[in-house]
């Protein structure tokens, strides 16, 4: 019975998925109701998770772990899931994707991510991953009459299935050469002479890298970001990244930590390549969603830099980076949701011109977000990069630091380009005024968080360092 208590949040989430399906089927025109109940059940899951005891618990023969790291990551996931849902309500309605399946599939994806975050066994992890991935395929092609959206879904499906295959192949190698699927046992049986297992780890890293879209496994990202409905894009940009990074940290620091010398160079390469591509490829983009795709690739590169250090500070900085990145992306996507004239959503960067004249407050928020994404002090984005540089320089990885530094300047260029269009260019027609409170709320809260972060930056750092005691 005790075990069931520990996995209550997961059980609750599964039950609510099933019961919401019932509600959706039996109540007519129930999108609004289902959406509301989805947000409600996500909120309740957060409460249940907060209720868990503050100790390391391993259940189901040590294949499922509940520790403060997992709890923190789960809360982030659920919280940003709620924010994505409330900020995209208007978009969903106007684009006629307000089907009951939409929030329910998001719930299913979230459940998958939560399982991934807590998994302590390769098989459980894979189950969570597949639940998440299958839900994401459907979400990407949710606007089924739209050519681009269908294409995005199909592309994502084919490539992601391939990545899952590689991942599974890697798992089988690891199992074969270490004799276990449990993280702790793997860690025990793993050493650098175990060439077969090292081989398997490379496949695992490839699979994980694909899921958080870092170079050279990023090809799907721009197309999927552009093709999928913006509400789904904002979900893609935020929520799966949390689980992806969490799992990355868990894999590298628990089962594979013994052979850090083997994977470190791989991660450094992934990190540098992503930073460079994210900075350079975004320069020529005109579609803001595509630009955000490249921007997210670059940001994931920075996040990986923290993991590559192999130190506690490095992981801390990665988690801080991730958290701040989530807030910035939330704000940016909230601004993108506001680019609407007469019920048509615009995606071209040039459509933003004159925002500063027609909607000075939105323009100001967008400005804050963009400067923060570029990492200019005193905004939160600067501190995110600062911590990463701190941990990278501590272990004397100067190549990473220099790459990060140069790409910061290069990527500042394209963020500035958007600011230029907003503030310096000739005004175009005004966008529609938004009356959606959820959207406004997300924008305002993220702007305020980014702006005031510098007053007391240790707060987030303290929380993060307290969850990493083990």
């Amino acid at each position, binding site marked *: 019975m005790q075990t069931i208590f520990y996995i209550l949040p997961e059980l609750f989430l599964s039950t609510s998925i099933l019961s919401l399906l019932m509600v959706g089927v039996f109540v007519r025109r129930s999108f609004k109701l289902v959406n509301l109940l989805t947000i409600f059940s996500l909120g309740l899951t957060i409460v249940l998770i907060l209720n868990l005891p503050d100790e390391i618990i391993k259940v189901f023969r040590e294949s499922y772990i509940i520790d403060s790291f997992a709890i923190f990551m789960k809360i982030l996931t659920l919280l940003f899931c709620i924010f994505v849902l409330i900020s995209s309500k208007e978009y969903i309605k106007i684009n006629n994707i307000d089907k009951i399946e939409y929030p329910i599939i998001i719930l299913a994806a979230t459940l998958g991510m939560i399982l991934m975050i807590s998994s302590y066994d390769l098989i459980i992890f894979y189950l969570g991953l597949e639940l998440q991935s299958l839900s994401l395929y459907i979400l990407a092609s949710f606007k089924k009459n739209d050519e681009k959206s269908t294409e995005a879904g199909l592309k994502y499906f084919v490539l992601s299935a391939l990545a899952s295959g590689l991942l599974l192949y890697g798992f089988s190698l690891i199992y074969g050469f270490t004799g276990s699927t449990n993280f702790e046992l793997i860690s025990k049986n793993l050493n650098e002479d175990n060439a077969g297992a090292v081989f398997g780890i490379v496949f695992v890293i490839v699979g994980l890298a694909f899921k958080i879209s870092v170079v050279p496994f990023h090809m799907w990202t721009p197309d999927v970001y552009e093709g999928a409905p913006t509400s789904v894009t904002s979900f893609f940009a935020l929520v799966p990244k949390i689980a992806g990074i969490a799992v990355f940290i868990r894999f590298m620091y628990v089962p594979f930590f013994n052979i850090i010398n083997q994977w470190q160079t791989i991660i450094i390469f992934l990190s540098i390549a992503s930073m460079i591509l994210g900075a350079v490829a975004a320069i020529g983009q005109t579609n803001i969603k595509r630009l955000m795709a490249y921007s997210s690739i670059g940001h994931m590169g920075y996040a990986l830099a923290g993991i590559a250090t192999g130190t506690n500070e490095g992981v801390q900085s990665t988690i801080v980076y991730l958290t701040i990145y989530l807030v910035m992306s939330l704000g940016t996507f909230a601004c993108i949701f506001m680019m609407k004239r007469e019920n048509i959503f615009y995606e071209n960067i040039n459509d933003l011109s004159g925002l500063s004249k027609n909607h000075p407050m939105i323009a100001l928020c967008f400005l804050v977000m963009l400067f923060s994404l570029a990492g200019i*002090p005193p905004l939160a984005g600067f501190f995110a990069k600062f911590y990463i540089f701190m941990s990278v320089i501590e272990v004397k990885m100067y190549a990473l630091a220099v790459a990060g530094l140069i790409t910061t300047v290069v990527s500042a260029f394209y963020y500035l380009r958007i600011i230029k269009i907003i503030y310096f260019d000739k005004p175009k027609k005004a966008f529609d005024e938004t009356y959606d409170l959820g959207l406004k709320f997300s924008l305002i809260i993220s702007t305020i968080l980014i702006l005031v972060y510098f007053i007391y930056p240790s707060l987030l750092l303290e929380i993060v360092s307290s969850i990493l005691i083990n």
Partner: protein
Amino acid sequence: MNFPILSAIVFIPLIGALFILVINGEQKTVVNNAKYVAIFTSLVNFLFSIFLWYSFDPSISDFQFVEENTWIKGFSNYQLGVDGISILFILLTTFITPICIFSGINSINFKIKEFFVAILVLETFMLGVFCSLDLVIFYLFFEGGLIPMFLIIGIWGGPKRVYAAFKFFLFTLLGSVLMLIAIISIYWITGTTDVIKLLEIRIPHEYQYLLWLAFFSSFAVKLPMWPFHTWLPDAHVEAPTAGSVILAAILLKMAGYGFLRFSLGILPIASDYFTPLIFGLSTIAIIYTSLVALMQEDMKKLIAYSSVAHMGFVTIGIFSLTKQGLEGSIVQMLSHGLISAALFLCVGVVYDRFHSRMISSYGGLVNVMPKYAFVFMIFALAGLGLPGTSGFVGEFLVLLGVFQVNAIIAVLASLGVILAAAYMLWLYKRVIFGKIASIEIKKMKDLNKIETYIFLSLVFLTIFFGIYPEPLLSTIDISVDNLIENYKTNLNFYSLQK
């Protein structure tokens, strides 16, 4: 003293900016209220800093009014404090900002509210740079100033403003991120970013060279030194008058201040090692940019190039490491802050009326604008370092200091003084004297009330400090002595260690 006066001075403009931001209502009342709030805040801040100067004790070499609060726990503290050097820069900043606001009232005619917000936010960042006693806080303010300045150039600037704003931003950012790496490295080497502690901790000399170069890259771009100066003429030409004034008067000084405080204070051995580099680059800057200034057809560009030359004097003065040289370069920075601000305002005055910055489109202004001709004359003469103006005191002291160290550099640098006379007088002749160039010029009005008061205050200070620089020198005296002494003992320490 328990009242955190430095924090107050730093953050009062920010509070003013927030007030302006929340003003709402009819367009006209908003503009009016914003105007009053901006003027009020900047003047109050000026009074505060006067009070700070008054209660500052120039006979103590330590930092005064030190405030310390935990900020990033276990890593860096929020620490402010001033010594004799930084207090003068604070005064300069709080004095120039109201002038910029008045000039903005005169010449900015759209998005006025946003303009005041940008100027006030910028003031906070600039003051923060001069007050901060922690490297991370310093970096935060140093770099944060890019945001408002980028917007000031980009929104209210001239036709090529986008290019100029981007160039300004990216150049400075590239220099600054290197400094960030250096700051983090200093933390890992010494375990602190507290400037007061760092002045005593001796960083091992094998690290110093690279760290120095990283700091140098940031300051050399910002100062700017030849050959990193190319962003400056563009930024100056395209920026609105108030932007040019702030840029020339204060933003450039942040780099000079950085050299004084960090390069000399924390990295003495590398400063000693790289002195020839600084001397070389500065001498080239003085002669080369003076020659370039001679050939300019755009008034703002001419003054921008002359700024680069004057900053060359500042750097050779700093790295001469003599008392005269250091004091000279500080006085030179302050006086250049007043003079270049005034010269840009002079250009702004005619630009507002005639919308041209080309020298060739003017001529004979003395006939239509006698007051203006008089003011312009004073500042042109001050710009070339005429005795009796503050420009002379700075240049003279710098040359005096450098002569003791390296006579050749001093001789070459004094060529710059001659060239300055050439371009300034020629500029003056072409704009003010001669035939009246066109009918439109004939209709131009002389200085209005606000402009007259602005110029009078600047004229007064320029001449006052030219005749009686004692208040400045007595304020910085002990701090400069302390700086040199510290530097010398450090050098001795390292040479013994070898």
